[in-house]
């Protein structure tokens, strides 16, 4: 369906050459269409092509998952939570830092896929799936971290409202119970939201595969053929999901923030914690998307066609806007507590600024606020993939420190000075390496099993884009097909 390629022939091409100083529309994916069959082949080839480096990294990650995740967790289960560093006064340690961090990462998928879909932001098209995968895999790590935190994980079913003979019932007054319900809703919702737009691409892969891959895609494609009815049901469902998953996304991280804000502890009891957490989640999520896109583009075949500088540029702008909003909520939270005059809070804030963890506090501000403000206003930086990925990485370091400061560090200074003791992680360090390794391992495996580029969405976008002559200029125009 070569719909949009017509405008680059004859006189229009000459016109373009006369105006070299103008932006060349072909730099944009939407104005540089290829036949659908060619795009399909490119995506399939990117999935089938692996090098020894890929298998080496995969092997290292698999080893780390086996040792740092499964063995370390098994050891902790058999020995008890004493092998972890959690003890009075910081009973909430890195496991919950990881939980909050991974839930934050998971927000990128929903933000990019749902909010940008609702807002009809066209640049989203080639990387919605890469972001949605981050949501699903991030939530798996968040869930695993919560179970690690439980300690006696085999009693996890006590959390669920199941009729029982123990005369125990979950207390719905508790934010931890809200957490369980919200995260369950988000995990199921985002996984279904990942799967629905994937069906047409699985059908495409089914049509081009043989052997075990054919069976795999045939089962997952569910018999999709692209009839008018199938598309109608699918698009209506995706629209419902796009609108419905946004409030769910906001609720999840708001409820996560309430785990802390509902407690009358210095540094935690804050009314802006909800939006502050949501913005923090988006901040780390956007940064993580920049890293993933850079790695995809650098390591997978043909990805430079689908993921272009324009996408990094748009992502960089989003990161800058999110960093402004993040800074606003951070300052709001900080100054109100600082001005309040509560002795324990004063002690905590002074300790953050001058105590042994001050380096973490200031790195957090530097990476999350100062760095994006100093760099992301510059288009050259935004359109340099490795630089944006590096900034995304540092933002994620900053966001990890932020969660670390909020949880174990803030628990150190409380209203009972005789309990003050700095948290020192032990086996948690291995388990953290394990969760990061598992996330990367899942992503690498998925990159070779499912099409990371939603080809049908890209083609749909290319069909709706054209150039319209207005006066002497040819201007990008988008046609509404719906």
């Amino acid at each position, binding site marked *: *369906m*070569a*719909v949009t390629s017509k405008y680059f022939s004859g006189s229009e091409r000459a016109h373009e050459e006369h105006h070299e100083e103008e932006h060349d529309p072909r730099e944009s994916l939407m104005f540089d269409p290829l036949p*659908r*069959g060619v795009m*399909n082949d490119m995506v399939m080839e990117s999935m089938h092509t692996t090098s020894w480096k890929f298998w080496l990294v995969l092997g290292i990650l698999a080893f780390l998952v086996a040792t740092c995740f499964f063995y370390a967790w098994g050891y902790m289960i058999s020995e008890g939570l004493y092998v972890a560093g959690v003890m009075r006064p910081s009973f909430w340690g890195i496991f919950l830092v990881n939980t909050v961090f991974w839930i934050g990462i998971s927000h990128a998928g929903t933000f990019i896929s749902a909010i940008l879909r609702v807002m009809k932001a066209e640049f989203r098209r080639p990387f919605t799936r890469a972001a949605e995968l981050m949501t699903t895999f991030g939530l798996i790590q968040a869930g695993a971290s919560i179970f690690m935190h439980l300690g006696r994980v085999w009693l996890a079913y006590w959390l669920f*409202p199941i*009729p029982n003979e123990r*005369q*125990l*019932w979950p*207390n*719905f*007054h508790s934010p931890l119970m*809200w957490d369980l*319900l*919200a995260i*369950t*809703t988000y995990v*199921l*919702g985002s996984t*279904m*939201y990942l*799967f629905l737009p994937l069906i*047409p691409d699985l*059908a*495409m892969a089914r*049509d081009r595969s043989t052997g075990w891959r054919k069976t795999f895609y*045939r*089962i997952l*494609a*569910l*018999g*999709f*053929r*692209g*009839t*008018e*009815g*199938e*598309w*109608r*049901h*699918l698009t*209506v*469902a995706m629209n*419902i*999901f796009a609108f*419905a*998953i946004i*409030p*769910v996304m906001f*609720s999840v991280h708001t*409820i996560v923030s309430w785990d802390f804000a509902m407690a009358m502890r210095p540094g935690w009891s804050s009314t802006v914690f909800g939006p502050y957490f949501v913005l923090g989640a988006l901040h780390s999520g956007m940064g993580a998307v920049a890293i993933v896109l850079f790695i995809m583009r650098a390591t997978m075949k043909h990805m430079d066609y689908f993921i272009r500088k324009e996408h990094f540029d748009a992502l960089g702008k989003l990161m800058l806007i999110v960093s402004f909003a993040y800074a606003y909520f951070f300052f709001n939270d900080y100054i109100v507590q600082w001005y309040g005059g509560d002795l324990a809070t004063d002690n905590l804030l002074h300790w953050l600024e001058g105590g042994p963890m001050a380096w973490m506090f200031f790195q957090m501000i530097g990476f999350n606020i100062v760095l994006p403000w100093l760099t992301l206003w510059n288009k050259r930086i935004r359109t340099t993939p490795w630089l944006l990925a590096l900034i995304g990485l540092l933002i994620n370091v900053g966001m990890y420190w932020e969660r670390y400061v909020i949880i174990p560090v803030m628990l150190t200074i409380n209203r009972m000075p005789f309990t003050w003791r700095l948290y020192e992680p032990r086996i948690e360090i291995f388990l953290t390496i394990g969760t990061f390794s598992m996330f990367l391992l899942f992503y690498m495996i998925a990159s070779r099993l499912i099409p990371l580029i939603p080809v*049908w969405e890209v*083609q*749909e976008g290319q*069909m709706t884009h054209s150039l319209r002559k207005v006066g002497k200029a040819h201007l990008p125009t988008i046609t509404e*097909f*719906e």
Partner: protein
Amino acid sequence: MADTTFLALFEDIDPAANAIEKLHEMGVTNDRMEVMSGVPINPRMLGRPHPWTNVSRLALGGAIAGFFFGLFLNFGTPNLYAVRVGGQALFPIPPGLIILFEMTMLFALLATFLGVFLESDFPNYRSLQYVPQISDGKIGVFFQIPQEEQQKFTDALNELGAESVEPTEARQL
């Protein structure tokens, strides 16, 4: 004589729309025609009726069911397993709103997802009429006509830009 299903493949929307109009003129009704494509195409562009879908109704049904499940969870079950905490109500309204919201959204999303399966008859692993060129971006127009009229229809559709017009049979996808 029983009708045979034919498939006409088109490169672009315009010739496909013209071909569908021609098929209508030649007496092929919408219920004897099926269009398949690799991207969602608004049926109006092809001069076809909008397919009916119950997905949004099922989503609403799911939301209502989730709301009542949330009510039961929050205001019903504490009666069965009372957790009496000093000074706290057995049925607190503000936390109840959170439970209600989460259950309403969860059931709405589940119903939407299952709605796609129900409405599209997924999963369907039977033999079906299909050609892989459709996922390569071609538009496939399947229509049923008597076998003896094949030549007349083939000529008419080829003239309108069909890449091929051939009888088709159900196949394993």
